[in-house]
């Protein structure tokens, strides 16, 4: 196909003939290469994005340095893997994806600055990136102003829906409600103690969880505590847990605090095989730092776990390990980040254009059947329909799935009755 593009006589008929002839033997040799002629650049890019006849530029914007680099490494690796797989399969509309990577440096203003650079200077057709809510909030006005396109991978608090953002992670209700129902029904849990880091995501998640516990499950919340980000001493709250003896400890502690919390919980003699603990902030990535022994027995609710048994996931895990080493673990956000480039590719191909407005218009209803988590669909509200799963942490740092919602759960970023 490459020689065809370099041909000096781009007559449509001639091209189609050549393609047919050249394509037959080639198809047998390279079954995964796309053979559709790359449509003319002028036709697929009317808004001045960085699209050439052979390349399209996509930005990757994560923290490589600073405190968030710990979490964002996986997401960034998954995006690169997805992009290289797309390129190996012929690219998007016949164009290879070129990555421009920027470091958000765990600093929200830097994220905004770099996002602007990716859109204004590099004219990226899409950007995969951000992790924390704060970084997303910082870049959001930039994406809206310059009509960029962001694929945001993290499970988050909801309360947001932007034309320029696709949220490939779960919003809060998707992640929380089904798992609370499960722990109530299966384990008979009635009393809950919430512990979170002090920022918007845990607070909103706990607000939703509290409403659900009180209004739907008719249980009680016996405590709700927040700790500053980076807090490392939890002995006092652990004593409070011992005093209140809740059926379930519900946690959304993040970062370094997470590690300290579980280590101290274990040290204080709270045995997670007897005490129910449900977390929405621990994936395989976090267990790496916490240590499998320290958290074994806890339940985590996510939409993806590395141990999921399905052919898509097996392929994904093998490819990920091939690219990034056998020891790397894959967490929920990593998988959600992996979806971004594919969802974008599908939307671009459906729209037949890289134009952001057309890609956005083509996205609702798109189905991605090869997702490692199984199958996802884009809702008109730019979030994904996905399943909720609850899994038990094992000492080896992996999870064993114990519950999976029977159907895909509808994303509901502005949940009625939970605000």
């Amino acid at each position, binding site marked *: 196909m490459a020689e065809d593009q370099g041909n000096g006589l781009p007559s449509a008929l001639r091209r189609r003939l050549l393609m047919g002839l050249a394509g037959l033997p080639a198809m047998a040799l390279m079954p995964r290469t796309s053979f559709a002629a790359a449509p003319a650049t002028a036709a697929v890019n009317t808004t001045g994005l960085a699209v050439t006849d052979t390349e399209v530029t996509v930005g990757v914007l994560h923290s*490589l*340095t600073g405190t968030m680099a710990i979490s964002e490494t996986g997401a960034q690796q998954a995006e690169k893997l997805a992009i290289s797989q797309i390129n190996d399969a012929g690219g998007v509309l016949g164009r290879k994806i070129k990555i421009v*990577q*920027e*470091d958000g*440096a765990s*600093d*929200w*203003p*830097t994220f*905004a*600055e770099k996002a*602007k*650079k990716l859109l*204004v*200077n590099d004219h990226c057709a899409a950007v995969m990136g951000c992790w924390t*809510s*704060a970084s997303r*909030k*910082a870049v*959001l*006005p930039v994406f809206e*102003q310059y009509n960029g396109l962001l694929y945001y991978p993290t499970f988050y*608090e909801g*309360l947001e829906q932007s034309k320029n953002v696709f949220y490939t992670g779960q919003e809060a209700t998707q992640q929380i409600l089904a798992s609370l129902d499960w722990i109530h029904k299966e384990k008979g849990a009635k009393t809950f103690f919430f512990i979170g880091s*002090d*920022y*918007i995501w845990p*607070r*909103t998640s706990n*607000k939703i969880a509290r409403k659900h516990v009180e209004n739907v499950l008719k249980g009680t919340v016996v405590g709700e505590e927040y700790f*500053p*980000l980076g807090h490392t001493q939890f002995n006092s709250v652990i004593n409070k847990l011992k005093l209140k003896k809740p059926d379930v400890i519900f946690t959304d502690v993040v970062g370094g605090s997470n590690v300290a919390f579980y280590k101290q919980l274990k040290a204080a003699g709270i045995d997670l095989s007897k005490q129910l603990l449900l977390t929405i902030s621990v994936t395989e990535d976090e267990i790496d730092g916490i240590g499998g022994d320290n958290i074994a027995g806890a339940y985590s609710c996510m939409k993806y776990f590395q141990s999921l048994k399905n052919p898509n996931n097996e392929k994904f895990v093998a490819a990920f390990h091939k690219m990034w080493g056998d020891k790397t673990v894959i967490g929920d956000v990593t998988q959600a980040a992996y979806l971004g480039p594919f969802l974008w590719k599908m939307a671009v191909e459906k729209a037949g254009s890289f134009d952001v407005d057309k890609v956005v218009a083509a996205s609702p209803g798109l189905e991605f059947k090869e997702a490692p988590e199984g199958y996802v669909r884009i809702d008109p509200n730019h979030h994904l329909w996905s399943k909720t799963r609850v899994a038990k942490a094992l000492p080896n740092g992996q999870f064993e799935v114990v519950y999976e919602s029977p159907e895909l759960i509808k994303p509901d970023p*502005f949940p009625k009755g939970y*605000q």
Partner: protein
Amino acid sequence: MIRPASPSTVHDNPFMKPMEWVSLALLAAVIFLVLPLCLDAFRLNLAGKYLSYAFVALGLVICWGFGGILSLGQGVFFGLGGYCMAMYLKLEASSVENTKIQSTPGIPDFMDWNQITALPWFWKPFASLPFTLIAVIVVPALFAFVVGTAMFRRRVGGTYFAIITQAIAAILTILIVGQQGYTGGINGITDLRTLNGWDIRTDSAHNILYFVNGALLVACILFAQYVKRSKLGRILVAMRDKEDRVRFSGYSVAGFKTFAFCLAAVFAAIGGAMFTLQVGFMSPSFVGIVPSIEMVIYAAVGGRLSLFGAVWGTLLVNWAKTTFSESFPELWLFGLGGLFILVVLAFPNGLAGIYRTYVEPRLTRRAKAPESAPTALPHAAE
């Protein structure tokens, strides 16, 4: 504390020496002509952001370079100025019209997310632009006055003052992050749109703000120069070098120190307010220890004794940071860390020191030709 004597001469004290006028003209030329002509809109906005940090560096030259008071909490004042401005802009962006999907329309979105149903009292005055502009100056000045008076009256100084200001920066960050219903928490105050009806997000607005920022910066430099040349400035330097002698001569050392500290705070706050206007948000990540130290670095790289050096240093460090992190995202911390160490060890007086030691003597030797200075300084600076 032994430092090279500042270039001030006691007798024959014009407002600025010829070379300083040349430096000023050069700086103004770069800010108002070279950068706007050479940079695209995005880079110019970045340069504007850098120049808003230069206010902080300028303040540090006064209180650290001349006064010998190292504050590691300038981020606090930068943040206070920025937050005052951001509160005004946020209130304007949160009209009932814009926020009708909230359960309580008309209050900032983050308050709604935190179940706050009415605007807190301390937010209310920020609906007025004149009040906001006054607050940008007065709030940080007042805070600096309280801190300064408490510290300097009890003769706290040197490294001890530095780490107390640092502790204050840390505490304020935790407060802002913790009180997210009132402050926007770690996300900060985002999505700011208009200033008194004028959309600040457009390229043309960025351009105008850039020039306003530049003009304010030059005005601040002139004011700082005035302070430096005044008797007050000389007392500051005297205090830095021999505090006791100044005290025994009957001066109120604490009062002068507090004044320098307040002035630095006000400069920082102006920078913060200009930053908010140009970048479109304010967050606690400008208040804490890390940004405060970085701001000291700007002044150190530029030369802690030179008002112009501070501006050049700010531009240089930020330019290096942006370039390093764009080209070698995984290695730029090495470069930045190395720069700090190099400057401190080898060039304690920063760019201005290099200029004074190596460039200026040659220039003056070459038959007093100040016109050739413009070619020399950019080399030193960039």
